[in-house]
């Protein structure tokens, strides 16, 4: 085997590089310091989405004035019940057809659609205006699973997001919400909010992290709420969407809502 000077220098250079990288690899491999990692039980998705079957929901509402999903959500997240509609806090709530779907509302729609309340929650939009307008980045869209979340520590209460959200999914704490919470009923595992911050549905990020479904989905006995990964063609939501015609709220605005309605 012939070795000229050029070849020798090449091999020599690569060898020196390799030797100098060794201590770096050793240091990385040892890494005993504290570190953070996701909970292994956490549920993964490209973009979480929800399908609300209003037919099933209305059946249950007619039967027994069902508010299971709202009660479960509000109990778990310490959402106060404030009678004054100007101050109320909404995570999941009921609204008339003409307000839920103003661009589709037509006065000759079937009575049961016009008269029945729709179940609304944050749409966890693909292109969320609330995130764009937030000056402190307190509201952000989580890159991993598309949930629109809030960091209450950073919220300065400017309410730009409330102006930005076309779905009314955000509520401002005009006062201390704890005044409206029963100390005996309060969920000790979840924080409350404080005066001066905005809040909204968080798609139960804290439950997804433990491998649990959102509280409203779990509470619904009529199985009217289905959640899943909209980017996965095999997911339950995608199978429902492929089989039935569904509506989304105010799609013309281009926010890309991820809550679908079966009527």
């Amino acid at each position, binding site marked *: 085997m012939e070795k000229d000077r050029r070849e020798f220098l090449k091999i020599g250079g690569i060898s020196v590089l390799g030797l100098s990288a060794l201590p770096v690899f050793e240091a990385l491999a040892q890494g005993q310091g504290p570190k953070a990692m*996701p909970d292994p039980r956490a549920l993964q998705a490209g973009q979480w989405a929800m399908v609300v079957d209003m037919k099933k929901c209305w059946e249950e509402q007619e039967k027994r004035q069902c508010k299971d999903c709202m009660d479960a959500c509000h109990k778990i997240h310490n959402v106060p019940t404030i009678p004054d509609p100007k101050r109320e806090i909404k995570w999941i709530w009921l609204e008339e057809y003409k307000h839920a779907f103003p661009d589709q509302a037509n006065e000759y729609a079937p009575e049961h659609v016009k008269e029945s309340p729709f179940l609304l929650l944050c749409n966890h939009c693909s292109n969320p205006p609330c995130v764009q307008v937030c000056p402190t980045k307190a509201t952000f869209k989580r890159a991993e699973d598309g949930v629109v979340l809030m*960091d209450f520590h950073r919220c300065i209460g400017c309410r730009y997001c409330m102006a930005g959200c076309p779905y009314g999914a955000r509520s401002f704490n005009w006062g201390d919400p704890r005044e409206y919470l029963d100390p005996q009923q*309060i969920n000790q595992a979840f924080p409350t909010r404080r005066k001066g911050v905005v809040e909204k549905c968080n798609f139960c990020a804290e439950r997804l992290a433990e491998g649990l479904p959102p509280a409203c989905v779990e509470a619904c006995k009529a199985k009217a709420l289905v959640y899943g990964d909209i980017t996965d063609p095999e997911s339950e939501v995608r199978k429902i969407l492929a089989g039935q015609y569904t509506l989304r709220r105010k799609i013309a605005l281009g926010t890309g809502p991820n809550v679908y309605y079966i009527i």
Partner: protein
Amino acid sequence: MYDSGKIIPGIILFVGLFTFPLWSNLGKAAPAPKPELPKTEKVCVMDAAFMKTEHMVLLNDWRDKVVREANRVWVGPDGKEYQMSLQNSCMQCHASKTKFCDQCHNYAGVKPYCWECHLEPKENM
């Protein structure tokens, strides 16, 4: 000196009043805080010296990791795993806010606003 009869007693009175907090508290040092450590656990998520001086930094770091990065598990220097949560981890061992947190915070005169949202453990239950 003109008006020395008024000025000198005036100065003495002023100095006396000005230094009132000093001599009135002389020899009465506030007792050092005695935070009550949990009896159930021997080790914290980091060593005690670090926790004493840097727990607020650690909590801010945990907040960002949990809220922003969705990393909820903390692996301590000894390899033990913890959930990063003030309410669900810290306060499970340090089960009394008044006997632990408040001890030093009151002594140092700091008022962390953690508790405006995070729930402190229900004591005497």
